[in-house]
C-alpha cells in the first residue's frame, strides 16, 4: 500500500521536477548557450512572467476571443461530424465511403483554409469559426462512426432476436456504445480547435485574438510579450482539455471497461 502511494506520488513529483528543471535551466540561459541565441531572441521566464502580469488586461480579452472561436467551432464542427456519422450508420452501403471522402478534408492545411474562409464570409469571426468547424468535423465523424458501429459481439444479434427495429437499436445500443468514442473525438478536437483558431487569427482581418497578438508581437521584435501571449494560448488549451477530461470521467464512470 505504502509503495503504491509512493509510486503515485512519484508520478506527480517527477514531471513537476522535470518542468522546474527546464524553467531553471532556461532562466540560467542553458538553452541560450546550447542553441546560440541571445536573451533578446529567447526571453527569460522571469521576464516573460512580469510582462504577462503587466499585460493581463490586454491578454485576457484576446484569450476570450480565441476561446470563443475555438469552443463555438468545436461544437459546430463536432455536431456536423456526429450527424455525418449517424447518416453513414443508417446508410452503411455508401456511408463509409462518404466518410473516407470527408477525411480528405483533414488533408487541407489550416493555412490554406483560412484565407479561403475569409473570402467566403465577410464577418471575420464567422470565417474563423468556420475554419475551426471544418477542422473539427472529421475526427468526430470517424470516431463517432466507430462508436456507433463497433458493437459488442452478439449484442446486435440479441437486439434482433428481440425483433427491435432500427430506431431502438440506435437509441439503446449504438448511441450508448458511442459515448467513449465521442469523447475521444472531442479530445482530439480540443487540440485541433485551438490550432485552428490561433492560425486563422494570423490571417483574419480582425486585429484581435491570441493568434494576432503572437504574430504582431513576434514580428515587431517584442519577444517577451509574444511569449506571454504564447503562455496564454497554452493555458487556455490546457484548461479546455481538462474540462473535457473531467466530463469524460463523469460520463463514463459507470462503465467497467
Amino acid at each position: 500500500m505504502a509503495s503504491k502511494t509512493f509510486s503515485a506520488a512519484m508520478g506527480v513529483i517527477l514531471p513537476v521536477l522535470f518542468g522546474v528543471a527546464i524553467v531553471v535551466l532556461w532562466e540560467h540561459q542553458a538553452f541560450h548557450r546550447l542553441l546560440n541565441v541571445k536573451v533578446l531572441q529567447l526571453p527569460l521566464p522571469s521576464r516573460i512572467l512580469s510582462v504577462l502580469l503587466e499585460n493581463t488586461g490586454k491578454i485576457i480579452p484576446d484569450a476570450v476571443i480565441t476561446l470563443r472561436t475555438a469552443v463555438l467551432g468545436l461544437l459546430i464542427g463536432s455536431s456536423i461530424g456526429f450527424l455525418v456519422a449517424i447518416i453513414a450508420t443508417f446508410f452503411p452501403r455508401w456511408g463509409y465511403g462518404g466518410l473516407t471522402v470527408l477525411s480528405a478534408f483533414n488533408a487541407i492545411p489550416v493555412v490554406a483554409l483560412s484565407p479561403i474562409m475569409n473570402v467566403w464570409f465577410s464577418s471575420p469571426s464567422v470565417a474563423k469559426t468556420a475554419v475551426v468547424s471544418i477542422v473539427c468535423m472529421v475526427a468526430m465523424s470517424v470516431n463517432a462512426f466507430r462508436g456507433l458501429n463497433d458493437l459488442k459481439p452478439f449484442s446486435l444479434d440479441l437486439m434482433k432476436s428481440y425483433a427491435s427495429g432500427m430506431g431502438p437499436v440506435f437509441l439503446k445500443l449504438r448511441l450508448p456504445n458511442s459515448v467513449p468514442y465521442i469523447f475521444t473525438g472531442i479530445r482530439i478536437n480540443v487540440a485541433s480547435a485551438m490550432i485552428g483558431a490561433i492560425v486563422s487569427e494570423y490571417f483574419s482581418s480582425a486585429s484581435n485574438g491570441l493568434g494576432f497578438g503572437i504574430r504582431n508581437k513576434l514580428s515587431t521584435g517584442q519577444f517577451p510579450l509574444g511569449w506571454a501571449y504564447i503562455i496564454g494560448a497554452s493555458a487556455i488549451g490546457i484548461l479546455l482539455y481538462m474540462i473535457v477530461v473531467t466530463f469524460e470521467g463523469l460520463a463514463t464512470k459507470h462503465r467497467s471497461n
Partner: protein
Amino acid sequence: MKGLRNALVAAIALAALIGFAGCSGKAAAKAPAELEPLTIHLKWLPQSQFMGYYVADAKGYYKDEGLKVTITPCDGTIAPEQGVSTKTADIGVTWVPTLLTYQAQGYDFIEVAQIFQKSGLLLISKKAAGIDSGAKIKKTTKVGNWGLGNEYEIKALLQKNGLPTKYTNQDFTMNAFDKGDIDLASAMTYNEYGLVINKYTGALGYGAENVNVIDMNAEGVAMMEDCLFVSKEWLADPKNEAKLVKFLRASLKGWKDACADTNAAADIVMKAGSSISLEHQQFMAAQVKKLVDPDAVPIGTLDEAKLAQTLDLTKKYAELSDSNATAKLQALTLADLYTDKYLKLAIAAK
C-alpha cells in the same frame, strides 16, 4: 576482430577523404573570392521602392567597390530586423519608428542612412465618405492598417485626434477597401494608392478624383520611413565598417541613377523578379523619387529635425506594453538612433 579492423580502415579512409575534400573545397572557393559578400534585407518584395539597390547591382556599382551584394526580399514572414539580428543579413531596410521599437527592446541597431525624406503613408477613402483630414475621422470609421510595425503613424494620427487606436487588420490587397469593409485604408503613395486610382491591369481604376487622401506629412504625424540600418556588433569589425562605406557609396550612386530615369529603374527592378506589372513598377518608381527628393537634398541625408520628430512621435504614441522597453524607448536619444559617420565617409570619398 577482422570486422573491427576493416571498420577502422574504412573510417581512416573516410576521414582522409573528407579532409581532402575540405582542402580542395577551400582552394576552389578562394580563387574567385576577390569580391566581398554582403547581404541587404529589404522590408518588402522586389519592387521600385528599393530601385536604388537593384540599379546599383545591375550597373555593377557594387562590383566596382569590390562587393558581391545579395538582395534578400522580405515576404512578410521574416522582418529585416530579424535578418540583421540573426546575422543572415548585414544591412537592413526598415522604417525609423519600427527601428526605434527594436532599439527599445534592446537590439543594438543603428541607422546609417535615410533614403526616404518624407512619409509615403496615406489614409485613403472613397470620396462619398467625405473624410479628407484627420479631424474628420469618427469613432465609427473603420481604419485599416497592415500592422507589423507599419501602424505607428496611423496610431499617432488617431491619438492626436482623440480617437481609439484600434485598427482593422488590412491584408496586402485593396479588396477590403473596394468592398467597403474598410472605410479608411492605409496606402503607400507609391503602391496601394496607385493600385486604387490607376487604370492599368491589376489596379482598381478609381481615378484620383474619386478618392480622398489624408497625408501624414500634412497632418504633422509624418515619421521617417525607408532607412538603412546595421547592428553595432557587426560594425565593431573595422572590415565591416569599410564594407559599409563602400556599400553606401555604390547604393547612393544607384539611387541617383534610378531617380534620374525612373522608367529605366523600373525595367531593372522587373528583371530582378516582380509580382506586379511594369506599369505599376514605373508608377512606383516615379512616386518613390518624390520621397527620396534628390533635387532638394543629397540622397541619404540624415535630417536631424525630421528624425527628432520621428523620435518624439514614437515616444509619444508607440505602445510597447512592456515597462522595461517603454522606459528604454523614453530614454533613447538621436545619438542612439543614428550615426552619419559612414554616410559622410561615403560622400567624401566620391
